[in-house]
């Protein structure tokens, strides 16, 4: 979280809306521990990461959706997902990412 605070402050200083995504659970092999955090601005800017680069693209899409809808949601990425949710971790693990608007 610490490494994304400056970016978050800068975006908010520019009047942008921000969503924060945090890893809240990992099953099996996962590159990042719970607490790994990523922030996304409504302009699509990104700070931090929640995996080794495997699911960040999908998290941006979800985060922009969360900013628009103003409701938090859990996103789960991993092997166990069906094909419709085709983004996964190449390492075979499952990661649970909680995404929420920064309005707290």
């Amino acid at each position, binding site marked *: 979280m610490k490494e994304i605070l400056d970016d*978050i402050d800068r975006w908010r200083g520019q009047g942008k809306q921000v969503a924060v995504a945090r890893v*809240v*659970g*990992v099953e099996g092999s996962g590159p990042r521990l*719970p*607490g790994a955090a990523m922030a996304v601005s409504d302009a699509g800017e990104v700070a931090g990461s929640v995996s080794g680069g495997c699911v960040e693209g999908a998290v941006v899409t979800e985060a922009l959706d969360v900013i628009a809808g103003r409701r*938090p949601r*859990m996103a789960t990425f991993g092997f166990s997902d069906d094909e419709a949710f085709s983004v996964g971790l190449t390492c075979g693990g499952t990661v649970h990412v*909680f995404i929420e608007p920064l309005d*707290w």
Partner: protein
Amino acid sequence: MTILYDALSAAIRAEEPVALAEVVEGPEHLLGAKLLVRPDAHPEVMGSLGDPGLDRVVSRDTAGELAVGLSVTRHYGLHGEARAREVGVFIESFAPPPAMIIFGAVDFTAALAKVAKVLGYRVTVCDARPVFATRARFPMADDVVVSWPDKHLAMVGPSLGPRDAVCVLTHDPKFDVPAVVGALGTRVGYLGAMGSRRTHAERVARLREAGVDDAGLSRLMAPIGLDLGARTPEETAVAICGEIIALRSGRAAPSLRDRDGPIHLDGHVAVGR
């Protein structure tokens, strides 16, 4: 208004202990509800998860996780009942950074301080010689202290714990012995001392004279560092930091290629189990 976020980010920046507990599973209207716990601040608890019973139990558990620096998801009933799974609360601890104290203001110290900063340590360089222990020589250190090792450890020793490290790079018995003896009197998780095998054999004899027993000697990693074939100060710094990580995780530190089994043994903190 982002009162909780502002308090959280201020505490993280000030390196004060803080933890955030947040509902990440459960009834839709509770998702995102938060409690912020700051043991050293007033008020100690900010925010709410929507129920006084749940708030009470989660604040207690959050303070407990923060004390050991863990981040986990725990489950409760809607009113904080144990053994219920109506809400999942992600507790994230932002513990202050671990401390590394390096005794001896030498070239190896500068390299070790740099690598330790990359790993997130709060680094103190301590040497009794004011000519060597200067800010100008160690701009990367958080603190540069001119003091004898035993004096410095008498002051900061009680705050050292399992996440912290003491590295003795002086290889001069008049500094080494008080540094090692002082560090053995703390709960520090890693204690290493630099020097050749011959230097170390002499050091062991002096430590025994100073009253250090087998249990104390077994805590001392010396000669310091992993057997990487490191030659330069920077390579040696990597060998030392590698040893600190291996000791913490209880690994023998061979190459991953030459092993079987999972790469990550911790961090299996699952949601929804």
